[in-house]
């Protein structure tokens, strides 16, 4: 075997090992995950995502939320995520089995969103933060996402989705600020982020 053939095979097989371990293995293994059944109640977990969540995930990606927000909770001892109330337990592979797009994220310039749908259940809260983040804090580094909303004249009854705003952000009299379909989808997605069901492979930390 001459030198260049040896080089070629070396290049091929050494990289092939990492490809088998980190590409082929997870690709095949995680396709085989199934829901678990709670023995006492018979409840299945996790549950498939509602349709609006799948649409909203696209809006989440398009607006780059993932560059500042993460979506996983680390084991207690590997990080203080549980103490920060970002979740009651660590997240595991099964939690993400139904997600067409998994946004684990690598930055926490913003809060972790794994369980944001547990912490906040009111769509109004999300609308306000997305439209005017400075209502959270004047110094917040989150930008406003006003293109997810439209200002329109109130026709008859005000919309139930109209964003409740005060001060300089409030719409002129007779007008209301309502989320677009993209805005609604994004908030639908965020509300669906709940990984608060029990899983046997990820018990809640005891203390």
């Amino acid at each position: 075997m001459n030198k260049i053939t040896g080089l070629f095979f070396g290049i091929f097989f050494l990289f092939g090992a990492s490809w088998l371990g980190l590409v082929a293995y997870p690709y095949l293994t995680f396709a085989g995950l199934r829901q678990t059944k709670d023995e006492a109640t018979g409840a299945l977990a996790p549950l498939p995502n509602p349709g609006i969540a799948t649409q909203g995930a696209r809006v989440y990606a398009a607006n780059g939320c993932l560059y500042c927000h993460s979506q996983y909770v680390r084991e207690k001892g590997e990080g203080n995520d549980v103490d920060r109330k970002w979740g009651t337990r660590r997240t595991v592979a099964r939690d993400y089995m139904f997600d067409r797009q998994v946004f684990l994220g690598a930055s926490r310039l913003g809060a972790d969103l794994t369980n944001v749908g547990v912490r906040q259940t009111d769509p109004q809260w999300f609308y306000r933060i997305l439209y005017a983040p400075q209502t959270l804090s004047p110094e917040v580094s989150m930008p406003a996402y006003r293109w997810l909303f439209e200002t329109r004249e109130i026709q008859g009854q005000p919309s139930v989705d109209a964003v409740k705003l005060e001060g300089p952000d409030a719409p002129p009299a007779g007008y209301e600020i309502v989320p677009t379909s993209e805005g609604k989808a994004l908030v639908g997605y965020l509300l669906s982020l709940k990984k608060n069901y029990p899983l046997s492979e990820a018990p809640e930390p005891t203390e």
Partner: protein
Amino acid sequence: MKEIAISEEESRAESDAGYDDRSGVDRSIRIPVLIFFGSGVFWLVLASLFYLLSSSQMFTPAAWWTFPGVEWLSFGRTYPIFFNCYVYGWATCVGIGTGIWLLSRFSGVTFRSPLFPILAACVWNVGIITGVLSLLAGATTGRELLEFPPASAFIMFLGLVVVSLWAITIIWNRRFGRMYISQWYLMGAFLWFAWMYASANLALGIGLAPGVAQPAINWWYVGSLVDLWFTPIALATAYYLIPKIIGRPIYSEKLALLGFWGLALFGGWTGLTYLIGGPLPAWMITASIMAKVLLLVPVLATAVNFHLTLKGHFGGSRGNLALRFVVIGAVVYTAYSFVGSIISARSIAEFTQFTFVTMLHRQVGLFGFYSMILFGAFYYIVPRLTNRRWLFPQLIESHFWLVVVGLGLLICSLTIGGLIQGFGLEDPQIPMIAVNDLLQPFLAIQNFGVLLLVIGNLGFAVAFTLILLISTPVRERRVATEQLNEASESTEAEVSVA
């Protein structure tokens, strides 16, 4: 006087016995290399502008100069556009250009019409253009460094396959039997990159990878991209330029081989260190951490080899700007790899993960290690391809200092800021908002550092445009460089005596 000595080793090469032969090689591959270089510089300018915009948006999200309220210029789009333009536009284009130039020189092959690499360059750039337009419109896959939609990725892949096959063919048809270490690295780089790019895009874009297989494959790709595409290209370049410029063979071929095989063995495993504590089997993450630590073996072998080759010749890097860029890049490579291993340890990652420290680490790898070496290559190669000299060497000198100072500011501000952020995040008593408030002064310094970097890169683009536009007769240049040579050699001698 010494700052003009960028052209010093040009005359040395001309007096070199084999020059005439190589200039034939250079002529035959000039057009594809210049297309890759030219498009690379264009993307560098675009990436720099988006970099400045995105880092300003992070610092002052509501200020008018950051375009608040403009959907297609919001942070969620400017940041991935900056990063993709930088990685696929600048870094990859200039990497391919340098790679095929090096391979042609080593192989001594002249081409009658280099149609395939020209075609590849055009196709690759069309892919990037469609990808960037998609990102502006919000059509993204939402996976880091694989944001381009599958159609753009497919176009880019076509260009990549053509140029990779062509590169391997040059190696196969080389006129000189013995292969130099740079050829090993380049052969690996072209094979690995085509492979990782194809399989990541196939598995994620078309193959619908299930659940957490997506981030696993995504970060495998990002780790491999840095360690098995950018790193081998940069090392191949340094292994060529350092001995060439100082006129001395590489210290040890055995060390070089250890460096190569170590990189080939561990380089593909490092990516999952970005997911420490993540929802993946523990062995996968542990394997990545171990690979990151073991990678220090080839890194050290390479660093020692460079150091012993350069020993006694460090003075030369003062007089020769191309060498100065390469040496700084090589030093940053060692430091960057050490920091990479440290922040991959689980007990340290607890604090540094998700913070500016990891973001900074990735950027230093690209800006401080890879781009520095490739800037050096650029300054060395372009005069030889065009048979012209760099006008206004002060521009190159200021490019160097702007990049070094800008990078220094970035490193200081984001390391301190990132550590404060990390300790803040790990203390559940401190609210998120308060953690981010602490970061404001560091983001201000970072923003200024980015501004310097961007100005430096724009100066580089101006220098490149000038050499393309303005012809300087070779004869005249020779006389000028001979005079300069004497001046710079005397400073070199003084330095080595001291």
